[in-house]
């Protein structure tokens, strides 16, 4: 088990390097291959009508006058060892992990992300609790009451949840509950540490909207898994041995049916932690996803690099945790 974790961790680190290299190449190499000069790149980050001196200064400061491999090395080196920049009267040190300075604002990227991370974590974990609880519960009941009105109704709603795009459900919920009835007026993020009640009140609508999509998906997955598992021979054996039905369903049925759910949960949560782009944009939440949208709109490469690397990090870590959880969930799984 220990060797497995070490092996997976090393593979994860390698994967992150590959992701960073590919992202770097997409944003820094491809424009050059398309014939864009370093001056043209720099011109995007200086006010309109710059003097040649201003252009040269920006080009030098952003590192566009360096070979690409040097720029990539500086980026990687900065993450592990920090870097020094000159964006003011004195040289400023960008501490580890240094993802560089924004080309637009000339402010360090990593502190901006760490400021936004609590927003994304609040959104993702809050929604995850709701969707796992409701999705799995509805899925189990639907499977146990197959063909009932509850089953048909819940699966119908689940189909709607999966089908409706989140930006649509977000806007409808905002229109109804924030503007028309003003139950949640003027939604804005309040830090948990500042006011837990306001934190929760401002996140209820985004949580429910996001969870509506995922719980629908999880309900359908759980139902399918439970139907398959409950038809297995060992379930019949368990019942024949006289076990309580609740024990049969929860310990023998649900536990086995949860394995694929946990797999997809890891991926979903990892993706969300890298930024719930549509939800954060629709609800104007200042999280990592909104930051990513802003970075892309402004073509601010260090921001894009940092968010991409962070998103990849979360997905890789989530996958690693899921693999480890398999051992706990399914006694048949053993790693050597």
């Amino acid at each position, binding site marked *: 088990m220990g060797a497995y974790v070490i092996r997976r961790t090393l593979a994860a680190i390698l994967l992150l390097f590959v992701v960073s290299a590919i992202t770097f190449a997409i944003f820094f190499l491809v424009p050059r291959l398309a014939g864009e000069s370093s001056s043209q790149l720099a011109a995007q980050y200086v006010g309109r009508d710059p003097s040649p001196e201003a252009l040269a200064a920006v080009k030098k400061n952003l590192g566009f006058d360096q070979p690409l491999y040097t720029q990539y090395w500086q980026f990687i080196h900065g993450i592990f060892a920090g870097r020094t920049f000159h964006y003011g009267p004195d040289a400023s040190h960008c501490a580890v992990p240094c993802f560089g300075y924004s080309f637009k604002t000339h402010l360090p990227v990593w502190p901006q992300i760490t400021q936004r991370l609590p927003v994304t974590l609040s959104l993702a974990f809050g929604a995850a609790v709701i969707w796992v609880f409701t999705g799995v519960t509805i899925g189990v009941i639907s499977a146990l009451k197959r063909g009932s009105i509850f089953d048909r109704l819940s699966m119908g709603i689940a189909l709607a949840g999966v089908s409706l795009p989140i930006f649509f459900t977000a806007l409808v919920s905002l229109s109804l509950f924030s503007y028309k009835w*003003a139950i949640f007026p003027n939604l804005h993020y309040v830090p948990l540490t500042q006011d837990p009640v306001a934190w929760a009140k401002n996140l209820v609508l985004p949580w429910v909207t996001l969870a509506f999509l995922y719980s629908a998906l999880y309900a359908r997955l759980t139902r399918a898994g439970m139907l398959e598992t409950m038809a297995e021979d060992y379930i019949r054996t368990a019942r024949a041995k006289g076990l309580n039905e609740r024990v049969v369903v929860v310990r023998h049925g649900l536990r086995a049916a949860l394995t694929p759910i946990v797999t997809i949960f890891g991926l979903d949560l990892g993706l969300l932690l890298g930024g719930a782009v549509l939800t954060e944009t629709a609800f104007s939440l200042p999280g990592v996803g909104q930051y990513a949208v802003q970075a892309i709109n402004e073509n601010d490469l260090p921001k894009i690099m940092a968010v991409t690397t962070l998103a990849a990090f979360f997905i890789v870590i989530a996958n690693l945790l899921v693999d480890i959880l398999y051992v706990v969930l399914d006694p048949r799984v053993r790693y050597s």
Partner: protein
Amino acid sequence: MPGSTKRVRRRTGGRRGKTAAIIAVAATGALVMTSCGSSGGSSTSSGAGPSGSSAKAEFNAGNKGIVNESDHAGGTVTYQLSSTPDSMDPGNTYYAFMWDFSRLYTRALTTFQPAPGQDGLKLVPDLASGLGAPSDGGRTWTYHIRPDLKYSDGTPITTADVKYAVERSNFAPEALSNGPTYFHQYLQDNTPAYQGPYKDKTGGLNSIETPDATTIVFHLNQPFADFDYLVSSPETAPVPQAKDNGSDYVKNVVASGSYMFASYQDGVGASLVKNPNWNPASDPIRKQYPDRINVQFNIAQTTVDNNLIAGNATMDLAGAGMAAATQATVLGNPQQKAHVDDAVSGALAYVAMSTNVAPLDNVHCRQAVEYAIDKQSVQTATGGPIRGEIASTILPTSVSGYTPYNAYPTTDNKGANSPDGLQKAKDQLAQCGHPDGFSTNLSARSDRPNEVAIAQAVQASLKQVGINVNIQQYPSGKYFTDNAGAPAFVHANDLGLMMMAWAPDWPTGYGFLEQILDGNAIKASGNSNLSELNDPNVNQMLAAAISNTDNAARTAAWGDIDKAAMQQAPLVPLLYRLDPLYRPDAATNVFVTPAYGMYDYLLVGTK
């Protein structure tokens, strides 16, 4: 100006990107499904507010007078923005809304009088005790600042801080690259060239003198009669050198205005509170009405609009108009429409015609285009009269020197879709040697659907006279650096026609015309004189007018230059742009300032 604050402001709208576009489309459905109520009409009260007449809350009331005029103090005013500003550092911003808003926490040497209508175009001294005193034929300008001014931290404000602010904002692109650099362009430089305060620790720019703590003298490299306008930029707002840490200064701006920062978070927002060291006796134009001013960034535009309607926000900081979905809903509801002011943005939408791309290098071919374009169809394509008034001059109506005239009239402005327009266009085509028309390319910014829609209307008009237009779309981020603003690209790709929108940095003829008509302003990249007009007469008229310190004569000259340029037909004026703004019930002292083409933020309060 090239980086035109308005241009940048509109680019903000364009940047909302695909996600926002999807959301906007979805919002249409959502808004149709749910009607968003408003709390009815607003009342007007009297009090000591800005200079101007009070106005009843009705459609366009804020264009004519002050709505909800009140001296009520207290409460929180909330500004929301669908994007982020380029910077809240007064020395590092080029957005019109930031020039407007920054006056709450900074004081430039001069500013625009807070008043509705044409009074809002009047320059008044702000940090300075009077307007500038020109000498040496307009090459030297002297200002005296008011006595006993203090920053929010209680330290005294001196003219050395104004000099430092100009130096850091104009000579240090390695740290502050967003703002315009007019001072760099017009001030005499050192020998060797000054490297800015962060690199050159030995001394400042010699052409700015501060003989004492309240006097500042600017030495220019040419006569420049609009200098009072130039110093209205937030780049002359004082910055204490001891507190300046380059690009990080935005996190800790030291206030000279009536409000100061309580907090700032990049990309998220800011909060301002009353500045205890601001002295009302030193400031005839500011008040301290709200207790707190909150600014929230990255709020979806439809959310901003709905928050204004629901009373959850006070102002849309961008001041660029409502989202299309909200606009349709609001204008269809008489109660909500009464809260709308269709603000003159100060920008002109036009088609530039290259004087160096055949056959448009022939003035008669250009004049054929002038006669052929149906401006009514252009207006319809951009959203109707609410989004733009049909234009016939280069200078927009809100710019000093605007003189109404029409060099290329057609019946009802319908161009080739009217019998006389069709005939005149054909006559010009015959004179240019292409009686059956010709083919050319028209560029437009792909991420500006409005501009593409106008281009398609232009294309349809010109087809009527046999001019076949092929629309070429380019991203706005590179439109000026690599495409329409790069003459070599224009020539190589036969861009005979180019879509363009332009607004001035300051509302005078020079501020508007110089960069788009002066042959000396043509650049290899970042060019704004898209037509590459290089007419010696126009160049000379511009140079003569800006040297003339007689205001009346100078103002009259801008109108003459407009007419002289239009004889050469370098561009087809299409629309004077309008932005429908929503004014909530609770907002007090609301009026549109023509200086920035949006609400004046200086005195906005809440009931």
